[in-house]
């Protein structure tokens, strides 16, 4: 699917400001070039090796900002969700003032998992082993014999904190001791793709409500999923419904458009729906330029955002094994649309179908990653050459 991804985070901010660059003019490292048309992909083992996967968890997912939890799912103080980031389990919650907080889900006493459940509401987090009890800011509130141990600092032995930001109606976390700049990395990815941040602000994403969530358990390496999102060479083959709505996707080169370009709905297409029928209420901030267009943004390493006039689709990807990735996909609409109980199925069905088509293709690739016929990898055609940059970035990160 999402053709228009090519300019995502690999573009520098400076490059984004120039706003008219084509992906395929980016220099391809000579050693990867196979011939005039072809560039080499990663070797098959890059998608199946457990040692490499662990390094990616450590160097990529445990270093960068990860979109973890929908803000509305932890609306009240003490409401929490546990989430896995890289190899770490985190408790994401709100303190009494309503500020988002993320803690390592590890008791400071003997290391037991503090919150074993996926979600809930708590006034404090209590370890079920020796009852060390932490308040909603992570501070050690009580423990057996604590008053006899005045040397045990209640802040010093509080739950370890992860970095937290809220943006686009989601809680983003970073488990590295020092977080990269959120503005440069996360917001920078959006700016590079769309040309500016105003373009996404028009959709008022933080004010939208969840209309539908579908979770996909994909038997494929996370990089295969990113690479699939980056190119549209496959669109005409596996996405007949999507290409009916966005005819320009059929040329395979849809990934090569300019910064800020959105794919235009086809003639006679009324909305971004499975059959091109009318969508729901247009988001008021969406401009006339943005109307009847589809924009896609990748925010490395785990987010894909799709913007259409009446809704926003946000995918979060959680790699759990070299050959397995959980993808949580949210369809977001105006609150009054969700409240009205109107039928969302035609718009949900379109992208659910696209997702299933994509993930099935990724799983077909995954199955062959250990074949001797793919040991040295495959090749990228010109409309996929920008994937080489993603592969170089991912390889560099674990070097």
């Amino acid at each position, binding site marked *: 699917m999402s053709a228009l991804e090519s300019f995502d985070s690999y573009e520098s901010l400076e490059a984004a400001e120039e706003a008219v660059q084509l992906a395929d003019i980016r220099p391809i490292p000579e050693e990867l070039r196979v011939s005039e048309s072809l560039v080499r992909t990663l070797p098959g083992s890059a998608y199946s090796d457990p040692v490499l996967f662990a390094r990616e968890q450590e160097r990529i997912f445990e270093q960068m900002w990860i979109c973890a939890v929908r803000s509305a799912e932890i609306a009240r103080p003490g409401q929490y969700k546990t989430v896995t980031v890289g190899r770490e389990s985190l408790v994401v919650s709100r303190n009494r003032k309503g500020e988002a907080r993320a803690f390592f889900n590890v008791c400071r006493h003997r290391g037991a998992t503090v919150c074993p459940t996926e979600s809930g509401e708590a*006034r*404090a987090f*209590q370890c079920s082993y020796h*009852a060390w*009890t932490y308040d909603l800011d992570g501070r050690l*509130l*009580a*423990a*057996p*014999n*604590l*008053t*006899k141990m005045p040397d045990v600092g209640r802040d010093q032995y509080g739950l370890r904190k992860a970095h937290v930001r809220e943006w686009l109606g989601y809680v983003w976390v970073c488990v590295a001791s020092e977080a990269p700049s959120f503005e440069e990395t996360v917001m920078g990815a959006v700016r590079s793709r769309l040309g500016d941040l105003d373009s996404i602000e028009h959709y008022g994403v933080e004010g939208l409500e969840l209309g539908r969530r579908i979770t996909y358990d994909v038997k494929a390496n996370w990089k295969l999923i990113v690479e699939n999102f980056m190119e549209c060479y496959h669109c005409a083959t596996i996405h007949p419904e999507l290409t009916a709505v966005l005819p320009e996707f059929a040329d395979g080169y849809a990934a090569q458009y300019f910064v800020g370009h959105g794919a235009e709905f086809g003639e006679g297409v009324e909305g971004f729906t499975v059959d091109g029928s009318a969508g729901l209420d247009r988001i008021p901030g969406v401009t006339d330029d943005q109307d009847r267009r589809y924009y896609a943004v990748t925010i490395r390493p785990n987010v894909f955002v799709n913007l259409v006039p009446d809704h926003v689709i946000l995918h979060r990807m959680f790699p759990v094994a070299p050959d397995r990735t959980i993808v949580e996909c949210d369809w977001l609409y105006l609150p009054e649309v969700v409240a009205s109980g109107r039928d969302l199925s035609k718009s949900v069905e379109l992208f659910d179908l696209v997702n299933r088509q994509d993930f099935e293709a990724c799983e077909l690739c995954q199955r062959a990653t250990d074949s001797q016929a793919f040991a040295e990898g495959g090749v990228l055609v010109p409309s996929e050459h920008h994937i080489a940059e993603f592969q170089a970035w991912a390889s560099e990160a674990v070097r």
Partner: protein
Amino acid sequence: MIPVCPLSQLALGEAIRVEPEGDVPIAVFRTDDDEVYAIDDTCTHQDASLADGWLEGCEIECPLHGSRFDLRTGEVDALPATRPVRTHAVRVEDDMIYVALSDEEPNLPPGVRR
């Protein structure tokens, strides 16, 4: 009578732990209804400070295992604690909280001595 702290320094819904000379620690609570009560601070089940617990009405819930003690009588509602805490008389004079310690024997958890 031992002085605890000025009433104005103890907010509604808050507690303070004091360690009187020669006796076990006590906890003084100011409830949301602006009543002041004093009980032994240590839960009778395991060594935990009730002043760190959850105050609701006239009941304090132990922060560790959830037994609730009635601030007026010291009685406990449910397991794991089974024995009551002592209660102490409280007087407030000129914005100062005073406590008269009970002369009963405290019910202390295993391993905690006077």
